[in-house]
């Protein structure tokens, strides 16, 4: 009986060439008889992963031209930030890319810290690193679940969201919120992790690679999934670099570029981890790279928990950081600082900074311009989804509509981040 449930070896001919568009429709020429039809997909469409509209020129079932139309969830966050004091901006920027909120917070808080020259304590660096990597796994799980759902693997969604829920439980326990936690502050983090959190996190770190193995067992030997992803949506490494694409998409094309390794920020220089890269740059490589990244992230979390230093979790500069609550009833100084920080906020000397970190989708940069007041004069996010979306046309040109949907899933745009 057992043999019936094992996967028959050698059934998938992974090297077999799929029929190309030219095989089926012939080369594109002037006197073709097929009619080109312009079709509108979205903005409200389950396969566009958000409020994205695609205007597609179709010749039969083949995409001949494509234009993404964006802006449907533009909420003017960057403008709203200009009317908020520095510490009140944090919850705003979290809501741009709503699946990687810790990254937005780190980009913004890190930029402001560098503007005012505030060094954060080692424990805060480690706590931030742990939270960022948990968030990276969370983001990749949402991506894997929804993209596999697009390709017909519905069960993947439930498995991925099961693990995602454990991460959200960890966030809730440490920060009080499951999403949009407002955990990072200028100067550190708002609270230390509670008792018992470390054990819970360790058990997650122990389980996660096993779960990833299960996902791979479900997808890597799945004939439908392999046929749908292998050799589809290939864009060369040079073209991706021209288009400014970063993150897993670039690494899947064989370019080992990761800001965590390249630049020195938070606790990453002390961590031992690898950068997974692909070879071909097709949708299958994009899937492999992200799945491998999840395992690397668990390694980083494990190391950071082992090496978690003691000491304060937020800097002790009362000009920028709220004093501990217990001091307010005994110290006049603390009361004054608290009052000033809560009412007016802190002032930042004129200057401007661009600070970039490696988000789950690529280079997430934050530009902050300070004019000397307690409100930023400009907050701009270089959102990786926004820039990466430009490569979508290259991915989907001259492929089938179904492959376009697959490429869009593998591109993983978050429209909240695209539109801001």
């Amino acid at each position, binding site marked *: 009986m057992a043999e019936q449930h094992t996967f028959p070896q050698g059934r998938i001919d992974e090297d077999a060439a799929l029929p190309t568009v030219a095989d089926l429709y012939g080369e594109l020429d002037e006197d073709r008889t097929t009619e080109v039809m312009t079709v509108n997909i979205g903005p409200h469409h389950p396969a566009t992963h958000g409020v994205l509209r695609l205007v597609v020129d179709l010749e039969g079932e083949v995409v001949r031209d494509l234009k993404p139309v964006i*802006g449907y969830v533009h909420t003017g966050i960057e*403008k709203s930030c200009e009317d908020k004091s520095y510490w009140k901006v944090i919850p705003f920027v979290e809501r741009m890319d709503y699946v990687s909120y810790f990254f937005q917070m780190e980009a913004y808080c890190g930029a402001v810290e*560098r*503007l005012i020259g505030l060094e954060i304590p080692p424990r805060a660096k480690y706590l931030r690193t742990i939270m960022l990597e948990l968030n990276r796994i969370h983001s990749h799980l949402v991506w894997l679940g929804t993209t596999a759902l697009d390709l017909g693997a519905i069960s993947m969604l439930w498995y991925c969201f099961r693990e995602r829920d454990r991460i959200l439980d960890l966030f809730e326990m440490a920060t009080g919120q499951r999403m949009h936690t407002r955990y990072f502050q200028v100067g550190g983090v708002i609270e230390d992790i509670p008792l018992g959190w470390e054990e819970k996190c360790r058990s997650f770190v122990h389980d996660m690679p096993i779960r990833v193995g299960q996902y791979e067992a479900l997808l890597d030997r799945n004939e439908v999934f392999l046929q749908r992803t292998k050799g589809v949506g290939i864009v060369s490494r040079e073209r991706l670099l*021209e*288009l400014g694409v970063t993150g897993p998409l670039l690494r899947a094309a064989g370019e080992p570029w990761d800001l965590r390794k390249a630049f020195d920020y938070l606790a990453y220089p002390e961590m031992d981890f690898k950068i997974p890269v692909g070879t071909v740059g097709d949708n299958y490589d994009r899937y492999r790279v992200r799945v491998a990244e999840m395992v690397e992230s668990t390694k980083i979390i494990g190391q950071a928990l082992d090496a978690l230093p003691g000491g304060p979790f937020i800097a002790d500069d009362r000009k920028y950081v709220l004093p501990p609550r217990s001091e307010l009833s005994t110290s006049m100084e603390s009361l004054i600082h608290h009052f000033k920080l809560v009412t007016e906020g802190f002032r930042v000397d004129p200057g401007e900074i661009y600070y970039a970190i490696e988000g789950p989708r690529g280079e997430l940069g934050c530009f902050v311009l300070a004019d000397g007041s307690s409100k930023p004069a*400009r907050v701009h996010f270089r959102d990786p989804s926004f*820039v990466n979306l*430009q490569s979508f046309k290259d991915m989907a040109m001259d492929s089938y509509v179904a492959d376009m949907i697959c490429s869009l899933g593998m591109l993983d745009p978050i429209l909240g981040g695209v539109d801001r």
Partner: protein
Amino acid sequence: MPDGPGLELLRGEIDADLAGVVLDTSYAKERAVLIVDPARVRDVLSWLRDTPGQGYRFLSSLHVADYLPAEPRFGVHYEMLNRERVERLRVKAMLPAEGPEIDSVTDLFPTANFQEREAFDFFGIIFRGHPELTRILLPEDYVGWPQRRDFPIGGEPVTFTYSEERYG
């Protein structure tokens, strides 16, 4: 990042090839900035990209900041990245308040396409030679440049049927 002296050396090298194009340099908070002549920004960027030994081939970000009330008022920022040496360099071109126009770099760096459209959308800066300079995030029929500092926050009336009926 090039450090302070490195930035001056770089300026010297650019001056040798493109005289007078660098107007100023600044080095603050470990970030190097070249302030260049907006009319020749394409020359500088292609020099930085193509000159052997420079290799700032990756444009990470293009964004605009409004320095109201300073004149020239708008700053177009090009965040250049040298991935071999892991160095960032900001090239900044300042544009006047009246009729801000600059050459598009879309053909040099295709990644600038969306970002220039975004800058046009929010600041009304004209990028000459851009293949499709239209609004990208705001509706096509929108009037005004909302990210400018003199555009009021809350300047957009939000009409609900309830408040319309009640307050006229």
